[in-house]
């Protein structure tokens, strides 16, 4: 197939045309290698890790498993366009980012979760994030970050990341810090 084809879609609010030269080219490949939009990460290309998660017409999907040609006329949101500020801030503030490779995918999944469930419990968070693997954090800080982001979004008070004049685990404006079940210290349902 030498002629190639052009696919038009909306990516993070902008009308974009991607020329692909084989029908099975993935949205992830088009975003990263053709359009230079490297926010979505490539770690497995088999749907297992979630680091390529984007919103396609509002739903989280693995960009590596979507054929770009399926996106004609559709709306794609990457980590650049899908994630409210408080979610990003909470991840930084909580130490939910270490190497950062999983972070864009997780942020998109969390943005979708908080859009549907403004105050999710741990069980809901775990189910919603089951498709996003993280090799670094052990997930606890990610779950904390979701709670912190939920709180910030509900009361409008930003939790900004620590600055150098504070200790690394202190934040400005943090009043409460949900950490699972206060009685037992358990955070699994």
């Amino acid at each position, binding site marked *: 197939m030498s002629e190639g084809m052009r696919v038009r879609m909306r990516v993070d609010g902008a009308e974009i045309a991607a020329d692909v030269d084989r029908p099975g080219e993935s949205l992830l490949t088009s975003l990263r290698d053709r359009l230079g939009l490297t926010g979505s990460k490539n770690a497995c290309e088999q749907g297992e890790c979630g680091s390529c998660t984007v919103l396609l017409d509002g739903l989280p999907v693995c960009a590596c498993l979507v054929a770009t040609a399926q996106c004609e006329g559709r709306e794609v949101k990457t980590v650049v366009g899908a994630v409210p500020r408080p979610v990003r801030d909470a991840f930084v503030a909580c130490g939910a980012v270490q190497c950062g490779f999983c972070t864009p995918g997780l942020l998109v999944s969390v943005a979708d979760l908080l859009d549907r469930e403004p105050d999710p419990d741990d069980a809901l968070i775990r189910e919603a994030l089951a*498709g996003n693997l993280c090799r670094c954090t052990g997930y606890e800080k990610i779950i904390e970050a979701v709670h912190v982001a939920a709180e910030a979004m509900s009361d409008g008070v930003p939790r900004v990341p620590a600055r150098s004049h504070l200790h690394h685990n202190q934040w400005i404006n943090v009043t409460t810090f949900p950490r699972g079940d206060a009685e037992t210290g358990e955070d699994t349902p």
Partner: protein
Amino acid sequence: MTTPALTAPAFHRPADLADALAHLAEHPGAVPIAGGTDLMVAVNYRRARPEAMLDLTGLAELRAWSDEGDAIRIGSGVPYARIVAELATVLPGLAAASRTVGSPQIRNRGTLGGNLATASPAGDGHPPLLACGARITIASTAGTRTVAADAFFTGPKRSVLEPGELITAVTVPKAAGPQQFLKVGTRNAMVIAVCSFALSLDLDARRLGTGIGSAGPVPLRAREAERIDLPWADPRRFDDALAAEFGRRVAAAASPMDDVRGTADYRRHALAVCAARALRRVWAAAHTEGSGR
């Protein structure tokens, strides 16, 4: 800069089902793509290099379900996430199985049509379809045919689907009693079943329906287990021994093998446990005060 023409055969987005079938008849090499959660893995790893693809995601006919009175007709392109969200009350077994598929990202894309066409012995959609007596509608330019779920699979990754045919719908009888789906895996998400078991209890017909997954070349029914004598007239006579006997019959119906996910012996054992548990659960649910249906 020239705008390359959208080459019609290479990636076709049909306007409707008739267009899709006509295209497939004309271009037998075109590979249908629905959610892409099986196909794109193969494409990304160069195990498949389709010259041409046929996109099913834009076909409204395949993406809707309808209430047919005593059954639900599910378009082959309805993703799992919608089965879970919209059909859990009428089709609890299929919804429970759908909820175990992959992750939210996979459930937002993956479809029953793709699950059936792939015909993996481990496909989680299959056991509940067997247990419920679902029927699969298949269309081509030659017409439409309907196949019972337990006659659809012919071997590992093989089915009665012929070139030029598309799965258009799966018709699943509404639950007439409690249903269960149990799946054994190494964790609670993103797991290919080591083995799985679906059970449906039909209180009106006083009948059991079974489906075994990942423990044979194709998903299986446990017919001897379905024929077990249950104390319908005096439900309190149900006991653990009866459940255990049911489990033994289900395990005997399986023909598992050893592979990376588990041994044949382990699968048989796990199936017996799952089946006994499933039967205890549906029986209790059916006969608990106020449980209704």
